[in-house]
C-alpha cells in the first residue's frame, strides 16, 4: 500500500501574468486529515483544483497514490471531490446527477444503490431526489455534491470549504465521516476558514499565503514554531499570515463610529 496519498512538488499555477500558486510542495499520507489554510486569495482552491485535474499547472509534479495527475482517469478514479462553488448541472435532478457520475465511475448498480441510500438518508436529501438542482437551496446543493463525492468510496477525499451552507446535523455527520475515512486508511485534504474545525479535525495543517506554503505541521508543532502564538490555531494562523497586526486598532476604530 502506498504511503503517500498525495505528493505535490514545486507546483506553479498562473492565470495570465498572475501567479496564484508559487512553488508549492507538500505531501499527504494515508490516515491523515490535511487542512489547507490561508487567507482569501491565498491559492487554496487553485491548489485543490489542480489536485483533482480541473486546472492544469504551469509547472510542478502532482501524484495521487503514485499516479501522476496527467494520467487523468486513473488518478481521478481515486478521488472524491467537493468544490468550493457547487455548480452542478442545474437542470438535472439529484437522481439524474448521481446516475451520471455513477455511470462515468462505472459503479455497479447494487453497491452504488446500497451506499446511496445510506448517504441520502444521512444527509437528508431523499425528498429532493427528483427536484431539479436549480430549485435546491445552497445547502442542499452542497449535500448533493458531498454525496456524489462519497458515492464511489474514494481513497482520497478533497473537500474545498465543505461545511459552508450545511446545517448542524449534516455538518456533524460530515466531520465524523472525515475522521472515520482517515481512520480506516483513507486520506482527506480540505480547506476551511473555520479554525476551530481545522484544529479539531486535522492531523496536519498547511498554511499558505500568496501561493506559498509558509507553515506546516500539527497544531502543536506550529505552536512551537511560532513565537508568541500560544493560543488557538486562529492565533497561529493570524501570526503566520501576518494578519494579526492592527486588528485591535481596526476593531476599535469601527466601534468608535
Amino acid at each position: 500500500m502506498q504511503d503517500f496519498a498525495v505528493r505535490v512538488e514545486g507546483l506553479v499555477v498562473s492565470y495570465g501574468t498572475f501567479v496564484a500558486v508559487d512553488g508549492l510542495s507538500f505531501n499527504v499520507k494515508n490516515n491523515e486529515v490535511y487542512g489547507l489554510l490561508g487567507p482569501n486569495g491565498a491559492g487554496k482552491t487553485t491548489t485543490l483544483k489542480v489536485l483533482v485535474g480541473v486546472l492544469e499547472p504551469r509547472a510542478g509534479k502532482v501524484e495521487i497514490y503514485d499516479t501522476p495527475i496527467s494520467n487523468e482517469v486513473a488518478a481521478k478514479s481515486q478521488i472524491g471531490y467537493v468544490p468550493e462553488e457547487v455548480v452542478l448541472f442545474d437542470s438535472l435532478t439529484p437522481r439524474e446527477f448521481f446516475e451520471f457520475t455513477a455511470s462515468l465511475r462505472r459503479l455497479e448498480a447494487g453497491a452504488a444503490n446500497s451506499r446511496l441510500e445510506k448517504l441520502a438518508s444521512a444527509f437528508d436529501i431523499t425528498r429532493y431526489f427528483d427536484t431539479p438542482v436549480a430549485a435546491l437551496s445552497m445547502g442542499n446543493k452542497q449535500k448533493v455534491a458531498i454525496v456524489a463525492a462519497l458515492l464511489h468510496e474514494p481513497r482520497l477525499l478533497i473537500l474545498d470549504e465543505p461545511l459552508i451552507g450545511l446545517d448542524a446535523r449534516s455538518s456533524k455527520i460530515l466531520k465524523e465521516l472525515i475522521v472515520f475515512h482517515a481512520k480506516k486508511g483513507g486520506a482527506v485534504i480540505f480547506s476551511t476558514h473555520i479554525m476551530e474545525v481545522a484544529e479539531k479535525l486535522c492531523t496536519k495543517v498547511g498554511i499558505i499565503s500568496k501561493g506559498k506554503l509558509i507553515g506546516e505541521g500539527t497544531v502543536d508543532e506550529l505552536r512551537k514554531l511560532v513565537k508568541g502564538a500560544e493560543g488557538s490555531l486562529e492565533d497561529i494562523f493570524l501570526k503566520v499570515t501576518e494578519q494579526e497586526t492592527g486588528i485591535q486598532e481596526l476593531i476599535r476604530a469601527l466601534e468608535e463610529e
Partner: protein
Amino acid sequence: MKFRELWRVSSTVTKEVSFQSVFSTRAGSSLPRRGSTGVAQLVRNAKYNMWISKVLTTIFICAFGFVMFIPQLGQTVFLGTSKEFTIIASVSTFLAAVLFFIVFMGLQVATSLVSSKIADTLSPLPLSKKEVSNVIFLCLIRIFDLPLLAALVVLPTAYLMIGGSIAGGSISVVATIVTEIFALALTIGLARFFYSKVAGGGGRSKWKTVTRFLFMLVWMVPAFGTYFVINFAEVILKSFASFTQVLGPSMELLVLVFPFSFGFLVSYVSNLQAASIPTLALSTMSSVLYVVFAFYCFRWVTTTLRRIGTGRIVGAVRETVKDTIIRPRRPWLGIIRKDLAIASRSPSYAVLFLLPALQVAVLAVSFSSFEAGFVVTTGVLTGISMTTLVLPPTMFSIEGLASSYTRSLPLRKRTLILAKTLLAVFIYSLSVIALLAIALFVKRDFTSEILFGALYLFSIAAASMLELTILARKFWKEGFALGNVYARLSTFMLILVPGYALAWAPMIAAFVAYVLAESFVLPVFLGVALAEFIAMSLIVYRQG
C-alpha cells in the same frame, strides 16, 4: 423614487437578465477564477446578444411591413382582389407577424426574467414593492423597446403611404398597441408556463422527459411560424386575400377573430362606401372588445411582473420521491442520458436537437416540386447535414455547464466523443425517418434520398467525430468553456467549416462520378463516406 431613477435601475436589471440568458448557454461554472477579461467579454456578449436580437426583430418587422404594403402603392387592385380586401389581408397579416416576431424574440429573455430571482436582489434595497414591480415592468419594456416602437411606426406609416385615411391610421396605431400587449402577455405566459412545466420540472419517468420534449416543441412553434411568415409572406397575403373574397356571406365570422377585426375596421374606415353596415358594426364591436381584453391582458402582465418582483413566481417543483434507486450505465450511455435530460429542460439545446427532423419536413416540402433525382438528394442531404453538424459543438458545450465539477470525474476524451457522436447520428437518423414518413404521407418517391440518407450516416458520424476531436483538443484543458455561437463565432466557424467539408466530400465525389459515369454514383458515395468514417474512428480511438 423618480421615474428617471427607476429607469436607470431597470437598465442594470435588464443587463443582468440578458447576462443570465447567455450565461445559461455558456460555461457557467468555468469562468476563469481571475479572468476578469473573460467575464467582461461575456457581459459584452450578453449586451450584444440582446441588441442583435432587438435589431433583427426590428428589421424583420420593417421588412415585413414593406413587403406587405409597398406592392400596393398606386394600385387599386392587387393580387386579383379588390383593394379593401388587400388592405384587410395586409393589416391582419402584419399584426399576426408582429405577434409572432415579438413572442419569438422575447421568449428566451422573458424566461430568464421569469426564472431569475430578481426579487432576491431588489427586495433588500430601499424600494417599495410597487417600485420593484415598476422596475421589472421597465425591464420588460427595455427588452422589447425597439421592436415595439418599430411596429407602432411601420403600420400607420405604410398604411398612410398607400393612401389610407387619418382615421384608419389612428385605428392601426390602436391595433398595433393591442397586438403588442397580446404579444407581451403571450410571451410572459409562455415563459412562465415553460419555466414551471419544462425548465423547472423534475420527475424521473421517461414519460415526463417525453412530455418535456413535447412542451418544447410547442414552445418552438413561434420560431417556425416566423420562418414560414418570412419565407412565404406573399403567398400568405395572396391566400388570405383570396380566402376573404371567397368567404362571402360567412365573412362576418372572420370579422370577430383577432387580428382580422382590426383589418376590416382599418380597411372599411378608409373606404366607407365599400363597407357593408353589419360588417362594419361587427368589426367595430369586436375591435372594441379586443381593446378591453388587451386592457385586462395589460393588467395581467403587470400583476405577473409584480409577482416576479415579490419573488412569488419562482416556485420549486417538488416531486414525491418513492426511492433512491439509480441505474448506472456505461459511461457513454450515461453522458447521452444526461444530455437528453438537460436538453429536455433547456430550449437553447432542445431547439437544436429537434431542428434536423423539423428541417427535413421543410426541405421535403420545398423540394417536392422538383423531379426526384441526384440533385434533389444532395440538396436535401446538404440541408440536413448543415443543421445536424451544429449539434456536436452544442452538445460539447453542455459539459461546460458544470465543468468545475465534471472535470474532476474520470472521463476519457474518446468516451465523450463517442457519446456525442452517437447522439448526433441518432438525431440525424430521426431526420431520415422523418423523410421516410413524409414520403409515405405525400406518396412521393423518396427512395434515392432515403438510400443516400442512410449511407450518409457514416459521413455524418465522421464529421461529428472531427468536430468533437477539434473541440476536445482545444477545450479539454479549458474545461469545455466553448460558449455560445454569438460569444465565439470564430471558434464555431473553425469547427463547423472542417465538419461541413468532411460531410460534403462524399457528395462532391458522387457529383463528379455523376458527371463522368452515372452508374458509379452510389459506390463512390459509399466508398468516400466509409473511408471518412474509418479514418476518423481510428483518430478518435487514439485520443485516449
